[in-house]
């Protein structure tokens, strides 16, 4: 595969212009709106970016300014991002579900001069920030609905901006070209937020040419071309979505499809039939769980086929092959149903994924591969080869990416440090953090891992999360949590035990599925809280915990657990926006519960502050029962 020369095309605007000149009529983007897929060709893409860029320049946006982007993944977002790069500005993506104060922090910290806020909801966040968003001079929106009564003078309709841009282009047709020529690959183009499992996100500075070069490195490990179809479902501010939508899109000319809304994602996925797919582990887990939930409603014969097919398929995968029979009776239909029929390459990343879920998709014929990386390193820099069954490693590093294990212990486990030529330039306005993470040119990831016998990297957990019980048993909470989450009934789990005698768990049930189970078993409930307090639900989850315990060494078994009265929520700071558990916050907020888990009490009382979706705060008091999991292993109980 020949990709454009990064020495010539070192910024996204230059690449886009190149694509529009060489393949003007080819479809670059697709967006579903009003029930129809609307296509954008490369020529139209460029024209849109040109209008936006000229419009932005007229607003006074130029080199060194920051343009923040806030909204759903769509054509306007990616076009605005490239347009901002064309005028020499830096872009900062903000998660669409970020709360007002998070938006305020980022916008203020970066000193954003203009913000593209897709709709009324996002514009309102900015307008009500007032003082915190003092640097913001322009707020551009694309959806007019509900904007009629908005009278903030900074607010501007994207259509108006584009009209002005078009007029400017007519007046001076060479202006845009000159602008694109002037862009430099060495300048910072993207400010990418780190996930911030510990604190406020930091902003990694990524330059255009490094971005493009790293994407080409990635493409060498997993080639793509213009026949590839990608559905963009992960949040665009995330580094991997930037790599795919902008990087793969511009360099390999992979077609990027934007779904109609978050709710229609799975339908839209099926309509497009993507050839390449990246979902977060949580989404893969959700697909697997939904599948199981649906089959609960199916007829007995279908349930039998499903169970049999899964069993056959999983067994075959463990033996390193695929089961033809299972494919005929179950998996080909499942693939079609889920929209995975044409998938040539699929990836999961962002956090670890349970091995059972992983195997399930392999059995289904979805060539799923784990990848590993950090925002600072421009996303992924290792990827599984996919040639053999491998549920533990994240594969070998890409060509030109160096990874080593710092201070390995006797088993070879130590901190993963890494470097490559195209890594980030440092944290924006935070020299101190840059110095802390970048030592002697190596990025210290803070993850613990080791290389296996085939030089594949194995990531265990965050270094500081690897815990030790008071009895000296080392364990990885994440590893056990992922095992628990393979159960369709478990939505989220937090394993505790550091410095204590044994392991315990705080578990959130998966509402959609447990609710269905309850309905089937004629258990009445009114809310999540009610359901998770139900004794029979406790029994159900205890069964799941015992099942997991059976596969764990005795010292790492979960001895007690409780079902949390609510789901862990990013709005409460318990999860990051990419849905990783923030252990610090959980430990702090639920200290009362953790205490009760270890002092032998039969129930735990909680009195805590919650944040509602609109940002208001309130207090919650709740009592939760604690359940002991039988000390004797399951086999013994059966025998007696």
């Amino acid at each position, binding site marked *: 595969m020949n990709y454009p020369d990064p020495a010539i095309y070192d910024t996204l605007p230059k690449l886009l212009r190149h694509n529009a000149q060489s393949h003007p009529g080819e479809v670059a983007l697709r967006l579903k*709106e*009003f*029930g*129809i897929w609307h296509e954008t060709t490369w020529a139209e893409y460029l024209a849109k970016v040109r209008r936006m860029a000229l419009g932005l320049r007229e607003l006074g946006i130029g080199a060194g300014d920051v343009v923040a982007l806030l909204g759903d993944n769509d054509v306007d977002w990616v076009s605005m991002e490239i347009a901002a790069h064309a005028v020499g500005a830096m872009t900062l993506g903000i998660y669409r579900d970020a709360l007002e104060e998070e938006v305020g922090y980022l916008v203020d910290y970066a000193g954003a001069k203009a913000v593209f806020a897709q709709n009324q909801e996002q514009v309102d966040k900015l307008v009500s920030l007032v003082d915190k968003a003092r640097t913001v001079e322009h707020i551009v929106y694309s959806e007019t*609905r*509900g904007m*009629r*009564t908005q009278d903030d003078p900074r607010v501007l309709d994207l259509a108006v901006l584009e009209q002005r841009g078009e007029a400017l282009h007519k007046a001076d047709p060479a202006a845009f070209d000159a602008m694109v020529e002037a862009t430099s690959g060495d300048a910072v183009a993207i400010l990418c937020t780190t996930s911030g499992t510990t604190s406020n996100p930091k902003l990694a500075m990524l330059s255009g040419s490094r971005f493009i070069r790293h994407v080409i490195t990635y493409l060498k490990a997993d080639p793509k071309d213009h026949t590839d179809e990608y559905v963009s479902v992960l949040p665009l501010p995330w580094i991997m979505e930037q790599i795919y939508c902008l990087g793969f899109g511009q360099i390999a000319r992979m077609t990027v499809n934007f779904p*109609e*809304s978050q*709710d*229609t994602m799975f*339908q839209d996925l099926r309509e497009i039939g993507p050839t390449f797919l990246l979902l977060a582990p949580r989404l893969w887990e959700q697909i697997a769980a939904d599948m199981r939930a649906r089959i609960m409603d199916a007829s007995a014969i279908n349930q039998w086929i499903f169970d049999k097919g899964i069993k056959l398929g999983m067994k075959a995968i463990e033996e390193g092959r695929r089961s033809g029979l299972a494919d005929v009776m179950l998996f080909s239909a499942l693939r079609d149903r889920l929209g995975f029929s044409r998938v040539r390459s699929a990836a999961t990343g962002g956090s670890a994924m349970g091995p059972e879920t992983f195997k399930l998709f392999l059995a289904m014929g979805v060539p799923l591969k784990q990848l590993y990386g950090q925002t600072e390193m421009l996303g992924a820099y290792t990827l599984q080869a996919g040639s053999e069954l491998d549920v533990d490693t994240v594969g070998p590093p890409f060509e030109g990416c160096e990874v080593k294990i710092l201070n390995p212990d006797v088993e070879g486990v130590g901190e993963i440090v890494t470097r490559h030529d195209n890594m980030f330039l440092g944290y924006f306005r935070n020299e101190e953090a840059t110095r802390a993470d970048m030592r002697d040119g190596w990025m210290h990831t803070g993850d613990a891992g080791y290389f296996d016998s085939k030089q594949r990297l194995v990531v265990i957990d965050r270094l500081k999360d690897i815990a030790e019980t008071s009895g000296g048993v080392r364990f990885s909470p994440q590893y056990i949590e992922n095992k628990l989450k393979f159960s369709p009934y478990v939505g989220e789990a937090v394993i505790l035990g550091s410095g204590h005698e044994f392991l315990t768990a705080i578990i959130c049930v998966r509402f959609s599925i447990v609710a269905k189970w309850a309905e089937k078993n004629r258990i009445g409930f009114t809310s999540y809280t009610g359901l998770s307090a139900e004794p029979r639900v406790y029994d159900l989850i205890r069964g799941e915990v015992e099942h997991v315990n059976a596969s764990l060494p005795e010292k790492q078994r979960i001895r007690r657990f409780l079902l949390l009265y609510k789901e862990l929520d990013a709005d409460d700071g318990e999860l990051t926006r990419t849905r990783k558990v923030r252990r610090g916050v959980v430990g702090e907020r639920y200290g009362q519960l953790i205490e009760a888990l270890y002092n032998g009490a039969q129930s735990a009382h909680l009195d805590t502050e919650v944040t509602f979706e609109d940002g208001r705060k309130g207090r919650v008091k709740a009592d939760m029962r604690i359940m002991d999991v039988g000390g004797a292993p399951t086999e013994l109980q059966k025998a007696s």
Partner: protein
Amino acid sequence: MAEAEILQTFDTQAAAQRSFGEPVLTLENISLGFGGVKAIDDVSFEVRKGEVLAIIGPNGAGKSSMLNCINGFYKPQSGSITFRGRKMPSMDPHFAASNGIARTFQNIALFRGMSTLDNLMTGRVLKMDRGFIWQCLYWGPAQREELENRAYVERVIDFLEIQAIRRTPVGRLPYGLQKRVELGRALAMEPEILLLDEPMAGMNVEEKQDMSRFVLEVNEEFGTTIVLIEHDMGVVMDISDRVVVLDYGRKIADGTPDEVRANQHVIDAYLGVAHD
């Protein structure tokens, strides 16, 4: 082309300002009885363009009967209704529907076996001119007409954020969503006046908030006049411009939410003062 035209109609309607001056619908001295029971007793009020008017009252006060008189489902025994400059003793249902009066029902009245999309398309039937013969052919004017109407329906789907249930049979949807689909079908008729019979009954707080938001947005974006019956006083006082209160078939108050809240007759009716 078709889409551009539809876009335009949306814009011009939306540009209509909130002005409650001129009455679009006037009801004078309406009385309706079933046998010996007087459901409505000599009630007069008017509906002004662009307003959100709530009709409230205790159970059996005649609220639903009032709506049924407005869209012609019931024929009042006396009184007159003026709509679009036509003064009639009672409304003709077909005239009402084809002249921009749409409604939703207290007990959802959707086609349960049909998808959300098909249900919404039934709201467009009156906008289609081609007859049965044309519609039997796949190509031709009927297809064009279908496409134009589908495009309108898709805008309604987008507006009500029900894209994900486009193809789901409505019988399988939860109650709150069915209510929303029913609102969608009424909106598909491009109504000038929208009659909502207890749009929030049986909903939880979150669903009520969603529905209130949609009602207000319909009113703001399309300039649609809204007449609604609702029991939740919080909702009524929050979203209405004007409130008409009925009790035992009579009108006992008519004014802004604040006026009505302070009205002694209303307080008596709701707190159950003995009628003598």
